[in-house]
């Protein structure tokens, strides 16, 4: 990759940053920050806008580069990821989106705590939401660092570190000055860029094979060096039973975790009604589904056109598959077309990261200010005060994420994302579903289900091969590995549900019938919705 690519890519990065900063200035001009405005953008986005923003919030650079790269290297096993990421949206659509929009104001804790004694539930749900967000944020920061270093050829540690710091600073600026409104528009712009970039590359790949999908599959299998095995599951997750169970665990976490991600839930509060929330999810399923279908074509195209060995040679995790494919589709490394396409892909990936981190930072600052701070401090605060806390929290979270992002630079990004999903599925989803659907659910049940999912998930990770006992671990020197799986979901998700059930049946205080009626009526009719 020569200097031309990098210069053009840097110019496009700069243009995107300028546009996003302009958006931030534009939307924050002359606005007095009410909580409604800061957390929910005034709740006046249309379903289509919100659908694009949800897609922009959800499709990270890890999806664009990571999943296509996995498909380019391991064929079918990469596709398993994209299926999980998409099917998860049915859980959101069927069980969560409308009901949460009707019952909640800004955060997940609003929905769960409404039926309960508020303080303990809010603290529990706030803690787990912040944990999930920080894990997700660190994953994106680490991804950003390695991605930019990779695309710009700067393999030095300094380039990575400065990227992490820069991304962190930008996301704090977007969130604390622009709030939800700026974040939403950045996500919309990013979603349009990402879909446009993926669509252009997909069309070019399909044109190369004259629209013949079968021939694309054959060429990909041939050039992968694996033959038929490339198109069947097993290349990556086909090892011993531990590896297979690990994958099932990851699959469960992916499909159940999305509905518990705080930054996804907070997007439903930006539209006026539950009906609008439903329609935004329909939009986003359409966008996300077609995007993942395109990543399959891109991954197979990279295997068929670039070749799996070349991809592996450039980056062992396959993250450069799409940029290399773009270079080739544009006409080769020295052509103008190749340079332009490569720079566009790099800029789109960078935009993808910025939009995702802004959304996650906003959601976690909401959890800190609206749930934790509000519950731990008993002072009378005006709405203005809460927004000020949220802005400060965004900066604090930015600093924490930069610090952890620098420390965790060598951790696998896919693992971190899988872990965030597993914690969301274990701690947030059981409490949310019980609160919405179970008549007898009590305060103790809610608190136990959150901690009963959160603690096992975190403890199991500490005891897993990720942290110790293997050459690739965080602490390879010591061995306190007692749990064989990298992803805790298979154990911790059932534990979260079980703890919620057990806490409820052992509580001394019965569930409040009137509040349950209120939650149920509100959730299905929208009466009294914020």
């Amino acid at each position, binding site marked *: 990759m020569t200097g031309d690519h990098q210069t053009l890519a840097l110019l496009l990065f700069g243009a995107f940053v300028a546009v996003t900063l302009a958006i931030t200035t534009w939307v924050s001009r002359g606005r007095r920050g009410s909580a409604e405005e800061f957390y929910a953008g005034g709740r006046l986005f249309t379903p289509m806008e919100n659908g694009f923003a949800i897609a922009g919030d959800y499709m990270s650079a890890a999806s664009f580069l990571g999943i296509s790269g996995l498909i380019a290297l391991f064929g079918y096993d990469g596709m398993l990821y994209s299926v999980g990421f998409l099917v998860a949206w049915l859980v959101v659509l069927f069980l969560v989106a409308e009901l949460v929009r009707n019952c909640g104001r800004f955060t997940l804790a609003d929905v769960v705590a409404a039926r309960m004694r508020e303080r303990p539930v809010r603290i529990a749900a706030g803690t787990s939401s912040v944990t999930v967000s920080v894990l997700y944020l660190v994953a994106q920061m680490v991804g950003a660092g390695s991605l930019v270093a990779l695309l710009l050829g700067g393999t030095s540690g300094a380039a990575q570190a400065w990227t992490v710091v820069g991304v962190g600073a930008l996301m704090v600026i977007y969130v604390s000055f622009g709030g939800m409104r700026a974040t939403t528009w950045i996500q919309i712009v990013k979603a349009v860029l990402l879909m446009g970039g993926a669509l252009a590359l997909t069309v070019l790949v399909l044109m190369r094979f004259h629209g013949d999908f079968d021939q694309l599959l054959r060429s990909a299998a041939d050039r992968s060096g694996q033959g038929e095995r490339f198109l069947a599951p097993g290349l990556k997750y086909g090892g011993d039973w531990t590896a297979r169970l690990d994958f099932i665990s990851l699959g469960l976490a992916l499909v159940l975790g999305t509905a518990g991600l705080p930054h996804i839930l907070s997007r439903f509060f930006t539209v006026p009604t539950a009906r609008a929330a439903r329609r935004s999810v329909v939009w986003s399923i359409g966008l996300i589904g077609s995007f993942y279908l395109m990543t399959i074509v891109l991954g197979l195209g990279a295997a068929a056109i670039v070749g799996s060995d070349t991809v592996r040679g450039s980056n062992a995790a396959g993250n450069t598959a799409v940029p290399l494919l773009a270079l080739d589709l544009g006409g080769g490394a020295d052509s103008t077309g190749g340079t332009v396409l490569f720079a566009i892909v790099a800029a789109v990936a960078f935009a993808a990261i910025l939009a995702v981190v802004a959304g996650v930072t906003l959601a976690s600052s909401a959890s800190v200010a609206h749930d934790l701070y509000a519950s731990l401090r008993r002072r009378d605060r005006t709405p203005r005060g809460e927004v000020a806390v949220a802005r400060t929290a965004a900066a604090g979270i930015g600093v924490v994420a930069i610090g952890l992002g620098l420390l965790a630079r060598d951790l696998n990004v896919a693992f971190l994302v899988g872990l965030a999903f597993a914690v969301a599925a274990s701690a947030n989803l059981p409490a949310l579903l019980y609160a919405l659907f179970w008549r007898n659910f009590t305060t103790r049940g809610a608190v136990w289900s959150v901690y009963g999912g959160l603690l096992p998930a975190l403890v199991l990770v500490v005891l897993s091969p990720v942290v110790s006992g293997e050459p690739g671990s965080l602490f390879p020197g010591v061995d306190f590995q007692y749990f064989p799986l990298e992803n805790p979901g298979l154990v911790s998700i059932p534990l979260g549900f079980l703890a919620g059930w057990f806490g409820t049946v052992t509580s001394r205080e019965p569930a409040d019938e009137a509040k349950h009626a209120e939650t149920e009526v509100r959730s*299905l009719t929208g009466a009294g919705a914020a």
Partner: protein
Amino acid sequence: MEKHDVPDAGTGRGSGGSGRVSGPRDPWHDALASGWAELEGAGAAAAGVMPPGFARKPGTGPADIYLEVQRSAAFQEVRRRYRRFVIPGAAAFFTWYVAYVVTATAAPGLMAHPVAGAVNVAMLAGLGQFLTTFLLTWAYARHARLRRDRAALDLRWTVLEQKRERDRGRSRDGAPERAAGRDAPSGSRSREPEVER
């Protein structure tokens, strides 16, 4: 744009309602819960104007509006329709997804079975997951639009009207105003048979 249009003044707490979250009290209508005693009369007076299906006991207070609505036939119909679609639907896609993941990891041989050209069972199953997701999304949106939305909106109006009724009863016990307040819900409820089909 700072304002949010919440038609329901009864629960609309200002933007910064979270200032009150630290107590163990109901976050939604703590302001309303203050008026138990004075509302006794209003509740009884409203009993005569309840739409059919709302068995309102005389002497009940404001917190019971939701309990009454929850027990009403109209609400139970909405809930039944929602659950009848969502529970089997969720069970179906979740089973189908788990079966897919387990088969892919436990029986790769079966998945590698060729079907046509380079396309094998695994590829069909994966694309099938995409297809069923799109189909279920469409079916859910259609079901919600045709079978639930209108009835849910009517119930929303019912709750709103009952709250207004009660608030009026609290401020001044004017009979004409109460009569005027009655028109909207009965008008909207009359559309319900259309939805029942």
